[in-house]
């Protein structure tokens, strides 16, 4: 049991973070909080990918004669590249989201979802 907890602790944290983010995206009424939830969800996924690429007793993926040529000595580069992309995509989405929040505030004077819906009526 304890062994299982250690070897899978990352993944549990990942699930926890993602669900926290998802909950904030659905249930929170404040638009900025929704954005925070979005980023937490994304970082959860990034953590998931990075943890699957980690190796015990390995170093960073820069080939160095000091550590030898064998692939087992280096952490997985592929997941890292995928997640570099995901981070940049995430910040771009966040920027667009925050821009929309600012525009909405300018037009409706509130960033609370309920209040904005009230103004429509």
């Amino acid at each position, binding site marked *: 049991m304890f062994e299982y907890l250690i070897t899978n602790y990352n993944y549990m944290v990942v699930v926890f973070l*993602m669900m926290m983010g998802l909950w904030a995206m659905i249930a929170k009424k404040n638009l900025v909080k929704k954005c925070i939830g*979005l980023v937490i*969800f994304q970082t959860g996924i990034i953590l*998931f*990918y990075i943890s699957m690429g980690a190796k015990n007793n390995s170093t960073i993926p820069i080939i160095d004669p000091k550590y030898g040529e064998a692939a087992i000595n280096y952490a997985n580069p592929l997941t890292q590249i995928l997640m570099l992309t995901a981070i940049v995509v995430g910040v771009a989405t966040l920027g*667009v*989201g925050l821009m*929309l929040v600012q525009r909405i505030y300018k037009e409706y004077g509130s960033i609370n979802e309920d209040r904005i819906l009230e103004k429509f009526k």
Partner: protein
Amino acid sequence: MADQFLVLIVLFPLFVGLLIPIIAYFNKSVVWPLAILSLIGSFWAVFNTATQLLKLDPSSSISYYLGNWMAPFGIEYVVDRFNIMVLFAIICVSLLTTIFAKQVIEKELGDNAANFYSLFLLFITGLLGITITGDAFNLYVLLEIASLTSYGLIALGRGRALVATFNYLIMGSMGACFYLLGVGYLFIKTGTLNMDQLYDVLPLLFDSKAVLVGFVFIILGMWVKMAFFPLHSWLPNAYSLAPTAAACLMAPLMTKVSVYVMIRFMLNVFSTEYVYSVLTINNIIVIMSSIAIIAGSIYALSQKNLKKMLTFIIVAEIGYMVGGVWTGHVDGIRGAIYHITADAFMTLCLFMAVGCIVYRVGNDKLESLKGIFKKMPITMICFLVGGFSVIGIPPTCGFFSKWYLISGAFNSGAWYFIIALIISSLINAVLFFRIIEIGFFGAMSNEKPDYKSLQSIKFNEVPINMWLPLVIVSMILIILGIYTNEIMTNFILNIVPMM
């Protein structure tokens, strides 16, 4: 050159989309012709790819290795007879929309037109890329390109578009994240992102829970993106409030491409064996899509606003396709695949016609359509062709896709799906005949017709570059219908494996 067509499909709109912000500082009037030229270039590349493909054996595909790195290590582009059809649909729809959109964009957007065109082309790039790519992660990046541009395009719209866009952004990112998560669950078990290799490796892992979760999340992500019924809440507002040109482009394409991705994953990444035999959730999903069809149709019936009504029809159409695929019978899958193309043109036809109406009349409320047939005969005839296709009246393609869907449902015993299809056809008939009634006789059903005011209306058609694409689309609808058999035997028959 001959072997480079696959990548050229994407490169034309990409380069022009990037160049437009620079060019617009010097000369704004060349932007529109340039956009059309790039799409024609892309069309030419698609056409050449298709001719190459048709010379080959029906079940084979053409691959293109970007950066000349072999498949699992680099990114691969694949074209087979399934996605060549979707590619044709995308490029035709976007070309026609661009020709159509010139006046509308100038009228609605003014100074932002140049940036709008840039986003427009990059959106098309994203969709084309999603359709061609053979790499699961590359698909995510392109999906994000398409999504981000569509947020921009919708937010440029009027009124409450900002709030609608924000909802769409939250839902859309959720969908993309689900997709990425699903790919991660597959990746951790297989260690590869290439779809062909996944197809080879996955049969060994069919009893793994991680693969199940991966499958569920990929499908769930795509459902969010395509606005499948319980997750549809973002779609109606976003599409009805977007600028006309953006709505004409997005409503036919974005949802259909998501359906394409779903079918792609079901047939070519997981196999039909996994989807229909190992998992036993067909019936639930067919019931869900039946509910989606009926709910979408009823919502559509309750709208007083033309565009909003059409957006709910899209929600119902999504139900057709999802249900058709999940019936698990060959005919249903074929019908759904055929319906992707058919529905892209149908939706385009309807949205363009509504765009024309809004351009002349000023709004899209049902009451303001009185006497519209006399005022804009060409537009309304095309609108009716689109409407007939949605209802499913024989010479149009909508009839044939529905025929295949019903046959698939019949053979797999999903009677509730057949009932839902018939009810939705009836409701669609009511919807469109109501419009005919208002347009011809100028009355909502409970008023007395007012003939005098109708006689004062004069012929006032939209400019030629607006009605010509519309006519072409309605011709395409009929041609697709007439040549259904050829399309079935040449393209769709070989994609779907016999079960």
